[in-house]
């Protein structure tokens, strides 16, 4: 059999590049039915087109002469096509006996190839098996376009996506693509009507519902009209898709809370490189327990139940948000760049509260008032529960009889964060290691802004905060979780970088059970990590 390029891995993985013929093929597909297509559908169509083009080329080339097969005999002057030589055409100009004890009797034909002066020799009437002899079995073993897609589809898709993204002739909305020329015009008048409809309605609407309110005056297919509307609204800053995976819902950005449109600075973490190799097992375990949304590379738990309990940290408590992390993500609808509107249901009162899932920045907004109403402290446990509706999530705390508890309370003195133990009324369960109160939120905010703007290294922040926490304990020890919780008052940081600094510097000494001490005199010294392990 002769090798088709499209049957080889090397072609798709190394040689393949989208060309103008591919583009024309995809254009023709769109012109046939004017239907937007996913990138997966386009990839499969491209592979089908390439295979069809190659087959047509082969058939055209083969029609020019006899297909060369070593087992066949040829006469002088006969025109032969050589598939293994890129379908070169040759004329038989001579023949002699072949000589090779290994092959038995065979002939050697002399051939002049088109465009070449010299003659070349090829085997004929060869009794030995040879891969160029065509067999029906070999032809039937060709991989189908679906099999090719399974094997090489991801590579082809990446290249196609890069190609289409760089061309203005194609536009996309999410995963769907359409040629620009096939778009139905959704002009400023249409968009103004859409804005008015949403304004009057007061709640998000599907593109299908919006389309009914607009007169697009077109013969285009419904799917093209929907695509055009979605594309036009996505290009207009007034509109925001507040749906979720597989469900588009349009809403007005100006009707959304600012914390949804603009991620609160309190939650933003700029990842800094740090060395995880020194993290000892109990710190890794604590990191998993904390499950900060800015921590990457943590495997999800095997089982997700109908409820989950989250320990509230300072940034989320202040902003009125919940983290979207490994354990909480399954309780909310999935999405990508959307701001999904949901409803929280207070399990203790039955009250409903609007909430917003900001997928891109890993948080859910809408609990500020609820935290205040129930006096949930930093370190308090928040319980999420599934309901039958993916857009409705139950929220609760773990109640207990109100008691006045000794709690470390943060305040600002002389421009520094300090802690004191004070009695506070608490009526919910909480994590003793994470709980922190605050005396004056405004001065803490000022200090936080200054710390963020100065870009002080996390180690320096630790060296300021640690002694303040240590003085609250008779042994002068501080738990790693407490340090994480306290540092996040003035600097947003997941546990990984904090724990890495703990293990790296000799001034921090582990005393077991997750507790550490601090020795100011060793501040400049770094620890040899092998000693820690």
């Amino acid at each position, binding site marked *: 059999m002769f090798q088709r390029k499209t049957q080889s891995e090397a072609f798709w993985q190394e040689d393949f590049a989208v060309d103008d013929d591919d583009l024309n093929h995809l254009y023709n597909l769109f012109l046939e039915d004017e239907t937007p297509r996913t990138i997966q559908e386009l990839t499969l169509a491209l592979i089908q087109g390439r295979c069809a083009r190659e087959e047509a080329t082969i058939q055209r080339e083969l029609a020019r002469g006899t297909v*060369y097969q*070593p087992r066949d005999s040829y006469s002088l002057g006969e025109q032969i096509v*050589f598939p*293994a*030589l890129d379908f070169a055409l040759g004329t038989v100009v001579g023949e002699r006996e*072949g*000589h*090779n*004890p*290994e*092959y038995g009797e*065979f002939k*050697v034909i002399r051939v002049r190839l088109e465009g070449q002066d010299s003659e*070349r*020799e*090829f*085997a004929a009437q*060869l009794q*030995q098996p*040879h*891969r*160029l002899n065509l067999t029906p079995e070999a032809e039937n073993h060709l991989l189908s376009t679906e099999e090719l897609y399974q094997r090489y589809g991801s590579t082809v898709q990446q290249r196609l996506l890069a190609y289409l993204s760089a061309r203005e002739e194609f536009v996309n909305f999410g995963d769907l693509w359409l040629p620009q020329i096939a778009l139905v015009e959704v002009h400023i008048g249409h968009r103004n009507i859409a804005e008015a409809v949403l304004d009057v309605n007061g709640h998000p609407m599907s593109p299908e519902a919006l389309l009914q309110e607009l007169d697009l005056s077109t013969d285009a297919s419904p799917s093209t009209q929907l695509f055009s509307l979605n594309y036009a609204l996505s290009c207009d800053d007034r509109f925001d898709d507040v749906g979720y995976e597989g469900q588009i819902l349009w809403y007005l950005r100006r009707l959304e809370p600012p914390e949804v449109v603009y991620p609160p600075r309190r939650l933003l973490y700029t990842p800094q490189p740090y060395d995880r190799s020194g993290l000892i097992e109990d710190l890794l375990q604590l990191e998993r327990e904390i499950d900060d949304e800015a921590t990457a590379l943590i495997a999800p738990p095997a089982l997700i139940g109908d409820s989950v309990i989250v320990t509230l940290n300072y940034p989320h408590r202040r902003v009125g948000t919940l983290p979207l992390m490994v354990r909480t993500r399954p309780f909310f609808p999935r999405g990508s760049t959307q701001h999904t509107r949901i409803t929280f249901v207070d399990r203790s009162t039955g009250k409903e509260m609007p909430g917003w899932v900001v997928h891109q920045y890993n948080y859910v907004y809408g609990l500020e008032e609820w935290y205040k109403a129930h006096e949930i402290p930093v370190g308090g446990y928040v319980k999420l529960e599934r309901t039958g509706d993916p857009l409705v999530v139950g929220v609760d705390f773990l109640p207990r009889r109100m008691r006045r508890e000794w709690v470390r309370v943060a305040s600002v003195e002389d421009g520094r964060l300090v802690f004191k133990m004070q009695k506070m009324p608490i009526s919910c369960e909480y994590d003793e290691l994470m709980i922190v109160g605050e005396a004056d939120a405004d001065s803490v905010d000022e200090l936080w802004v200054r710390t963020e703007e100065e870009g002080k290294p996390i180690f320096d922040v630790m060296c300021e905060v640690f002694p303040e926490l240590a003085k609250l304990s008779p042994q002068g020890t501080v738990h790693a979780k407490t340090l994480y919780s306290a540092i996040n008052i003035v600097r947003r940081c997941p546990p990984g970088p904090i724990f890495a600094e703990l293990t790296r510097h000799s001034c921090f000494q582990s005393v077991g059970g997750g507790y550490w001490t601090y020795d100011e005199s060793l501040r400049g010294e770094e620890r040899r990590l092998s000693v820690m392990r």
Partner: protein
Amino acid sequence: MGKWIKPDVNTKFHIDFDWWEKQGRSLRVFLHSQLCPQCRTVYTTYRDTELIDWVDPETAEVHQVDGLWHALRTHCSQLPDYIDERTPLTSAIFRVFLANNNTPLSPVELHEIIGKRSPEIILRTIAGKQVYKGIKPVATNKNEDRKK
């Protein structure tokens, strides 16, 4: 004739075909004796083997090659017992040159391929007064340049 230079472990050697001619010995008879049993059933004699038609497995194009040499290189030398523990050192060296198309090699390189004896012993064996199977230093500028 160039100045004679004493070979060392880095001097390149090869099979000197002229030596076989001068000795009145037939290299082809010897090549035939080196074939594996399977190839000997194909090439029953050394005669008429200088030019055979070899068919390219990819294109079926025909190229004329030396039959014995080709069989040794493409088949016999790929067998595990082509060079093994029992193969005498001089035969092993000779077979290395047959397999690599007589590309010149030094005792150090031969030692790396054969994996036994030291480069010094290999040097002493093939650089002595007695020439084994035509294996001799290559009289090339490269060898002479290296000496300078």
